[in-house]
């Protein structure tokens, strides 16, 4: 599904030049659940942004679903993204002005799904993440765990092939954290590829493989399954 080769990303400010990714090469197969670990500033988030087609690399190759996407323009990336990739953020990033239902519905609107279909699919996923009873609430009215379940629902409503999770349990207590990890595992078992950035060894334990990064490079890879 994903094959990146010798990927480089450098951030420049007036005074400093930070190498975020240094000739990084990684491969993720269809249906895999990969955890990316490493200390702060090792380039995990940059990697995730590039995988998610939110950011573009300075150098190197990025093949997504057998297509070279490293040189895609904004429009093509957005198009590819909205049909194939779902995101789960540490801080949930739900839209405060929209209800649970509306938040989850949003990706379907952007991919042009008809209203009746949208309703059905949103209800399906809300049911799956067990938040159906809160469908008309606003994010502020929910607990952190509930908010993250909504965010996961939103990430999967479009049935993406890939879910990118950036510390999905970072703002949650262990109980709620486990719920979310359980949810991700289920999704993975149903065939969705997952790449998750995490600080937690516990969470990483849910994955098939752990990639450890330091200074923009892979250090080790542990295969768990």
């Amino acid at each position, binding site marked *: 599904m994903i094959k990146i080769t010798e990927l480089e990303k450098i951030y420049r400010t007036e005074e400093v030049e930070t190498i975020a990714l240094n000739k990084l090469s990684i491969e993720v197969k269809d249906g895999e659940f990969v955890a990316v670990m490493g200390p702060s500033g090792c380039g995990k*988030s940059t990697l995730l*942004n590039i995988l*998610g087609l*939110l*950011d573009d690399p300075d150098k190197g190759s990025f093949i997504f679903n057998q297509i070279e996407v490293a040189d895609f323009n904004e429009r093509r990336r*957005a*198009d590819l*993204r*909205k*049909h194939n990739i779902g*995101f789960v*953020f*540490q*801080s949930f*990033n*739900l*839209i*405060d*002005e929209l209800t649970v239902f509306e938040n989850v519905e*949003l*990706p379907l609107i*952007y*991919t042009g799904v008809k209203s009746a279909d949208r309703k059905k699919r949103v209800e399906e996923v809300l049911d799956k993440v067990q938040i159906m009873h809160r469908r008309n609430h606003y994010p*502020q009215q929910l607990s952190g765990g509930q908010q993250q379940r909504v965010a996961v629902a*939103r990430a999967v409503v479009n049935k993406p092939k890939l879910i990118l999770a950036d510390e999905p349990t970072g703002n949650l207590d262990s109980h709620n954290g486990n719920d979310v990890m359980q949810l991700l595992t289920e999704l993975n078992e149903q065939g969705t590829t997952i790449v998750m950035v995490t600080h937690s060894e516990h969470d990483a334990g849910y994955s098939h493989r752990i990639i450890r990064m330091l200074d923009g490079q892979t250090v080790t890879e542990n295969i768990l399954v």
Partner: protein
Amino acid sequence: MFKNHFKIAWRNLLKDRMSSVINIGGLAVGMAVALLIGFWIYDEVNFNKSFKNYDRIAQLMQHQTANGNISTFNGMPLPLGKELQTNYGNNFKYVVMTSWAGDGIITAGEKNLSKRGIFMDEDGPRMFSLKMIEGSYDALKYPNTIIISSSMAKAFFGNDDPINKPMKIGHKLDVKVTGVYEDIPLNTEFAGLEYIAPWSLYLTSEKWIKQSEAAWDNNSFQIYVQIADHTAFDAVDRNIMHSKNIHDAPEDKKYNAQVFLNPMRDWHLRTHFENGIRTGGPIEYVRLFSIIGIFVLLLACINFMNLSTARSEKRAKEVGIRKSIGSLRGQLVMQFYVESLLIVMVAFALSLVLAQLILPWFNDVASKKMIIPWNNPFFWIAGLGFSFITGIIAGSYPALYLSSFQPIKVLKGTFKVGRLAAIPRKILVVMQFSISLALIIGTIVVYNQIQFSKNRPIGYNRNGLMMIRMKTPDFYGKFGLLENELKNSGAVEQMAESHSPLTNVYSSNNGFSWPGQNPSLDEDFETIWVTHDFGKTISWQLKEGRDFSKEFTSDSSAIIINESAVKYMGLKDPVGTIVKWGTDANAKNYKIIGVVKDLLMESPYDAVKQTIYFMDYDNVNWIILKLNPNKSAKQSISQVESVFKKYIPSVPFDYEFADREFASKFAAEERIGKLSTFFAGLAIFISCLGLFGLASFVAEQRTKEIGVRKVLGASLFNLWRLLSKDFLLLVMISLLIAVPLSYYFMNNWLLHYNYRTNISWWVFGISGVGVILITLLTVSFQALKAAVANPVKSLRSE
């Protein structure tokens, strides 16, 4: 502490340059407008106040009732002056009879100049407290005297002493200069009055004046009075009310003439009477512009409040930190007030510059000579006071709102501005756009009305019609010579003489009777005396019958009437009808020989009145020339001039063009139109400035949301629509408010005009669409900027 406040305020100004520019710029423009309107209002309400006896002077006016309608005018019969002095004398300090001010030819030595002047009773200069440079208030005691303005003295005599110099008025009245007065200030009734000659001279100057000495039905004169020190206007009104009516001839008593005083304080601003009741006048414009001035300033204040509160959310953290290290709420309030006052003071300074720059143009439009009173301490006190109040008003909402933030919430990052926090802002935006829209709609209606009246059919061909007033007897008996030579030169196609110019009617009369006349009609006609070729010269349009002709000697008792007169008289077959004028033995019979289409000669906003055209070579004051359309006007004018100079060398060549004179009838409306365009333009500019700032704030506030939406696949168009939609909705609401409001007010305004346009739906359509487009343009810039930003940045900042 204050220094610290000031320092922070200054740094904030510099840090947030964009919103500082919007804030200060918008406020400065609003203040400049308020200043200009302030100057204008000051000038208007101080009109005539330079006369010392401002509070005691009045002009006599009368109401008369005809056909159930009361008309009000300031013409008075000559004998009333003496009557007031002898039988009502204890009411008055002075009673001053005057002629109408007008241009006269003044000669001194070799110099011949056309000057504006008046004949006045000897007490006039004293009553109007003229500032005499030479001579005394008694200068008009003897008939053959004249007092002149200092600029006229300069024009005739340069630096020589003018006293006792001989002059001639209208080439026939010999006078000598007995006084010189300072030029009368521009913002007074008598501005530009260059000479005053004695009433006693006027009485002997013309036969008809002498004959009017006992004529109570000839309202050809004016009377000004200063009431006695112990009395009041209303008391005098009660005493003199019937002073004219009791002397009126029995057949005129039905008009129920009521004399009253029009106090000087009402001369300029309260000039309109409707059916005998004072209904206002230019005072309405003073009120209107006061409201507009306040509104424009309010718009700028609204911007200021909106942007400050919007920005405040950015500064929430600062408030939290300050509170947590011990700042009291009062100190924070103080800090924000200092900031707002700083901005207002900078804006005030800028607005003075702006006002100074706009003032020449504004003076031109308003035809005034206003200046910024830099040396007047009251101006500074008022200006700074007004800035201070603006600062307090504009700063209060942010000051009170910002200082109420709870520090823990702000610092923990759980501070969220509620969904309701934006509502006051939205209301303010709606207000702004309602005002702007109403102004735009008003402006369009004013211009519609002008255009509508300009396009009105006038019944003759106005192109190339030159009008020359016969100011002195030198003109008489020369028409034949002039006509011959001018026609031969090819400069003039046709010419005639007339009692009135083409853009006015000088005379109206009653006492006409005709077969089938409605006995209850108090008949009254506009009367114009013309020579044979008048119709041909101006190309009037005959509907029935024939024009005056030299082939019929009987045409000296022929008349032509207009269509309105046919309707007014109730005639089925007008041509051939005999109209009798007069009741006594001297009554004369006239035969209607033709009917012409209505000629629009008076107000373009009123219906054309019933008019009778007589054929008469004696009772004429104007020469009307139709220039040859195949020649350049400039060339023709100089040819006409040289011919007039040849035959009438002693009179300066002065002329008017009918089309230009007519156009000047729109001056008042065009002035209103120009000013309202200016104000509407500024209002929309200020509103857009505010909108621009607000849109940038909203885009910033919603950065995270935009980022999330982008990640989820929102297109640029989706995002643009998302961000623009809310603002568009606000503008729509404004439209709903502005449309009925402006319809109501503009409809009322149009009711002032008898000939008026309708307010059609497209006026609202165009204004609405225009404002929506401007809104979208303003908002889109920010929306697109936010939409193309990379979402990674906004999401990472979480």
